[in-house]
């Protein structure tokens, strides 16, 4: 295959987007990804892994990441431009990019030695990682988690149970938060756990839509190599909070692109009883607010500003937009979601709609976000 143009790391996000759009429009290997619709998590992941590898090999996904770990350097905002350009071209984002935006920044800042070793493989999709935060008795109350991390010579052993790990069944490693010390948030440490070992068992959790979006992880004395700590021993809470600003902020940018797209798709094929124009406008404006807010957040994160609790606003805007968009899509397409069994139409929309019901829950529930906004941003008192 002739390389049309190798990415230039001096591009502005706009220049990058133009060049990338040209590549997507002209490269024949892209055709099989355009308009791809498959609600089955495992099948979609396998199909889109090819896209992730292709975009790495051609250099497009490496722009905006540091050269030292396998990127090509350049403006980090180009990453956001890549997601935007893919979505505009009706090409689904590989799940690897979703988790990468959340996991990679924390790795680059808090565990450069692991970034050296694994980052390029993660970006290419040769490695898939998942987050291991929640536990059966520690959901919103993350600081009460009990998975134990104990020393074993120069290494560590981890024992406990993790749950609600997005795309855990596709992963070969997990960035996991465990208790290495006292109770409360001071005794936590973040580690990288390999799944390919006897002490780890991963089971899928079938979600509302019937697909295996989530997983639970059982750890029984699983080995954590001595150098697989992410951030300092006992510093897990701060490391996790650093990670969450990416989860609630930068990730929102990817989601708004998808919501705009879904709205467009639903408007293109309205059923016999479309909803009111006011309801359509409401969904669009909620998505617009999310887009502009997360665009600003993407720029702030690229400038390495500490934005912490402010990303709870991004998450609240995301909840509003996601719920509104899929409510309106269901009504626009009715009765497609209710009665159509085409895997690429009714079944796919059903899955998207049902998954959107989790928006007020995933990544820190709406209640937690409201409390953070009230106490951290508005300065309301924690106690009387």
């Amino acid at each position, binding site marked *: 295959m002739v390389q049309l143009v190798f990415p230039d790391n001096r591009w502005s996000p706009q220049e990058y987007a133009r060049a990338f759009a040209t590549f997507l429009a002209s490269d024949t290997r892209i055709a099989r990804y355009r308009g791809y619709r498959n609600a089955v998590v495992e099948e979609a992941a396998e199909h889109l892994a090819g896209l992730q590898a292709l975009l790495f090999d051609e250099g497009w996904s490496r722009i905006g990441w540091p050269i030292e770990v396998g990127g090509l350097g350049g403006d980090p905002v180009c990453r956001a431009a890549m997601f935007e350009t893919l979505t505009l071209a009706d090409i689904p984002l590989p799940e690897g990019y979703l988790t990468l935006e959340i996991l990679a920044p924390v790795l680059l800042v808090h565990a450069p030695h692991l970034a050296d070793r694994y980052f390029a493989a993660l970006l290419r999709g040769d490695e898939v990682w998942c987050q291991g935060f929640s536990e059966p008795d520690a959901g919103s109350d993350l600081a009460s988690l009990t998975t134990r991390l104990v020393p074993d010579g120069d290494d560590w052993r981890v024992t406990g149970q993790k749950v609600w790990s997005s795309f855990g069944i596709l992963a070969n490693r997990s960035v996991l938060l465990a208790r290495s010390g006292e109770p409360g948030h001071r005794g936590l440490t973040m580690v990288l756990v390999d799944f390919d070992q006897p002490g780890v068992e991963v089971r899928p959790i079938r979600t509302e839509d019937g697909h295996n979006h989530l997983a639970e992880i059982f750890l029984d004395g699983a080995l954590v190599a001595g150098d697989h700590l992410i951030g300092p021993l006992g510093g897990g809470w701060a490391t996790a909070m650093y990670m969450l600003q990416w989860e609630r902020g930068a990730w929102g940018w990817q989601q708004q692109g998808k919501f705009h*797209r879904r709205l467009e798709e639903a*408007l293109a094929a309205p059923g016999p009883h479309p909803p009111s124009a006011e309801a359509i406008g409401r969904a669009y404006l909620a998505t617009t607010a999310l887009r*502009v807010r997360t665009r600003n957040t993407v720029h702030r994160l690229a400038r390495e500003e500490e934005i912490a609790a402010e990303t709870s606003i991004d998450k609240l805007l995301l909840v509003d937009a996601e719920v509104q968009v899929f409510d309106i899509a269901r009504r626009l397409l009715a009765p497609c979601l209710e009665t159509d069994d085409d895997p690429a139409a009714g079944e796919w929309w059903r899955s998207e709609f049902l998954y959107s019901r989790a928006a007020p829950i995933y990544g820190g529930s709406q209640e937690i976000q409201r409390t953070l906004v009230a106490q951290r941003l508005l300065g309301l008192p924690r106690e009387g």
Partner: protein
Amino acid sequence: MDEQTLELLRTSLEHVLTSGEASSFASRLDELGWDEVVANDDAAAVRTLFEVKGASRSSAPALDLVLATRLASLVGDDSLRTAVLALGPDLLPAELPAANGDVVVDVLTLAPLDGSTRLYAIAREGDELRLTTFTTIGLELHSIGGLDPSLGLMRLVGTTSATSVAGDAALVREELRALAQRALGAELCGLAEVMLRDAVQYAGDRRQYGRAIGSFQAVQHRLADARAALTGAQVVVGEAFADGSPWTATAAKSLAGRGFEEVSRQCQQAYGAIGFTFEHDFHRFLRRGYLLDACFGDWRSLQEAIGRELATTRTVPRIGSL
């Protein structure tokens, strides 16, 4: 404009907006060096003017000033810089029936008028739209209290002769509508920001059951929702000033109106009964906000118009680029 310059501008603008008579507002703004501020960064200047106006609940005729300035430059006639926009009974730019050089007037203005003020409006004769000006001479003038008596609304009724102004009337109307929607969006956000700040202060001070009411989750979550809605509106208002497009201006005005309403509802509840008294300032903010929301399209009407456009064109414009 950097943050320090902005802060200085805010302080000077607050002074200009809140001291002195409406009739001298233009000259006070002139003394501040407004033209220079605008020349330096038009978008930031106008946005800040209206945010401060909203926050200080000023009744200064700032909207007419910026609209007339734009009008004068669009049609190349400096004498229009002091003219006042005639609004229809629906608080949208008026469209007056015209015949034989006369216009039939039943309009509102957002600021007090004196006997010789020049007004401008779109006149329609058959299918033809043109921009016209007329004076208050010969028209009945009524002061209107309305929802927000502190504004000094006026109603003008009668038939009068009008002078045509050269220029593309439809284009001028579109330009001015977008500018007004951006400005009103900023003003609504400025107003709502102060409402939220004051209610948060109250919720932290007011104690019941031996604790600050702002420590109750029910109260916290209401005010957090208000914060999110207002921030969502503010960023889109900022984008409307940055991209200058009519579409974004409409989106911003709608989100700002909705943000204001969300903030006012949650704050009203946080205040409880005290906020419902005439003595408390709350209703003055509430009245001003609803009146601003009604001008140039209330948030629901705009939301509906946006939805209709999306359903008709089947395209979903992305507001805000990287």
